[in-house]
């Protein structure tokens, strides 16, 4: 293999080959980076009170479980702490950014199925889409939200996404609703959330039936594995906010087994509209709405009847970071050509139609 070929091959497999500076700025905005670095510097300068995981590290909370209650939540956030065991990886504290990267066609996988409704399982827990009873669990409290607070993104959009959370596989839905959550797990690097308005989806590995309903009292006292996952959203009153998204698992209140937090990483194919004809070798689209900072990217595939465009939203694995704008409709330009070694090529036929991919939750390929 000669040097030219070697150089060509290395260039072609460069993972950042197609990443422009603009894209990098979307991945990691300068302000966010500076803020994180400064916070980290300040943390390192502060006298240590107890061992704490780096802001950059993932934190998860280990627990074993007999049954499972699954709870999915999202909303604006603040931060706190409590007593679980802690291990690296799983829960990110960092900014959630909107990315716009072209993914290969195979990144769009078969839509996953999800439970459609939990209303019949435990109607008492939810009234008009809002949690109406206080559910106190180990390190996590779910309470009715203030009457004045309303979700910015409707339940119809989020419910299927939350139920499609990978961590909910093999569980039975209990309830879905808007709630205030308080997370107070003591542990290195564990976040604290105080009265954060979120959407929550609750499920359990126990079979909740009409004959054997998962009542609030029963849920709180059962030995449970609890998963919390969600999509970061500012509430209706906020013009900006910090997103929250995580999975919470617990062996149940008062269990000797500590709760555990996991990252929430979900993807969904979302709707888009073409903004006029192809111009400047780009396709302009309007997409969304989807949760703050949760745009993942797109894939463009040649098809017989045109080109299939899939726009993917992405549930952030991080929860608490920089503010994100509350605007949830996004205009994007999709470059339809690529230039390599001075040669520009169309990725797809620009004269053919652009076909909408199926929408809905898609499996996480990570």
């Amino acid at each position: 293999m000669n040097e030219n070929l070697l150089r060509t091959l290395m260039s072609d497999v460069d993972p950042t080959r197609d990443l422009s500076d603009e894209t990098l700025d979307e991945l990691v905005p300068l302000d966010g980076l500076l803020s994180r670095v400064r916070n980290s510097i300040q943390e390192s300068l502060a006298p240590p009170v107890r061992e704490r995981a780096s802001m950059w590290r993932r934190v998860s909370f280990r627990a074993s479980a007999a049954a499972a209650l699954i709870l999915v939540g999202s909303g604006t956030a603040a931060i706190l702490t409590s007593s679980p065991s802690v291990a690296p990886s799983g829960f990110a504290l960092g900014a959630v950014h909107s990315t716009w990267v072209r993914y290969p066609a195979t990144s769009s996988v078969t839509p996953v199925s999800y439970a459609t409704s939990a209303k019949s399982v435990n109607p008492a827990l939810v009234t008009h889409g809002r949690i109406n009873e206080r559910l106190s669990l180990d390190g996590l409290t779910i309470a009715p939200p203030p009457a004045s607070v309303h979700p910015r993104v409707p339940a119809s959009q989020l419910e299927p996404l939350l139920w499609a959370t990978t961590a909910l596989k093999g569980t039975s839905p209990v309830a879905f609703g808007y709630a205030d959550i308080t997370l107070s797990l003591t542990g290195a690097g564990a976040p604290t959330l105080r009265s954060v308005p979120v959407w929550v989806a609750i499920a359990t590995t126990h079979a909740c039936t009409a004959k054997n309903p998962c009542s609030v009292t029963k849920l709180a006292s059962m030995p449970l594995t609890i998963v919390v996952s969600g999509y970061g959203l500012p509430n209706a009153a906020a013009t900006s906010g910090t997103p929250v998204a995580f999975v919470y698992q617990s062996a149940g209140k008062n269990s000797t087994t500590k709760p555990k937090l996991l990252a929430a990483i979900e993807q969904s194919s979302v709707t888009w509209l073409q903004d006029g004809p192809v111009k400047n070798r780009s396709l302009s689209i309007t997409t969304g709405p989807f949760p703050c900072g949760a745009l993942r990217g797109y894939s463009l595939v040649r098809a017989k009847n045109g080109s299939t465009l899939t726009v993917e939203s992405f549930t952030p694995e991080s929860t608490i970071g920089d503010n994100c704008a509350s605007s949830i409709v996004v205009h994007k330009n999709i470059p339809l050509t690529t230039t390599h070694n001075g040669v520009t090529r169309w990725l797809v036929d620009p004269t053919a139609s652009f076909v909408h991919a199926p929408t809905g939750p898609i499996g996480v390929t990570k």
Partner: protein
Amino acid sequence: MSEKDTQFARVVATHRHALLRYALRRLDDRSDAEDLVAETFVVAWRRFDDIPPRDQELFWLYGVAGRVLVNVLRGHQRSMRLEMRLALERERELDTQRYNEEQLEQLMWALSQVKPDERELLQLTYWERLSYREVGAVLGCTEKAAGIRISRARQHLRQLLNDTDATATITRLPNQETL
């Protein structure tokens, strides 16, 4: 804001893209890459007085990033399967293909076989596109020493490649193509 703060902000603003590319080239997880960049700048802040003149800053930062990568993120190296597939997809769209899947596989295999420090040298050369002098600045050695080490790494890589392929050639593309 102090002079140090101002200068540090300039360093971050100037070199963040290059460092993020460096990180994304070596780590699968975007969050890990962000972590690497952030940690690198934290180290840069702590060692602010050691930062060399502007024309050498980036190479010094690459050196810091390399040490952070080794010390903090061991075992999280990037899997190149996706990049291989993308490269092949692009290549197949060309009228005249320059390489095939087998050659790409051979390169990936050979890269996996060289020592980590040799792989880093090759990546600095082919991905960051640094000269011998610049690699020397990253490694803290002379240009000549860097050249010798890079030559050895290339030689080792070629030996591995030649074990499986001695016939590959490259075909030049036309300079211009009508869209």
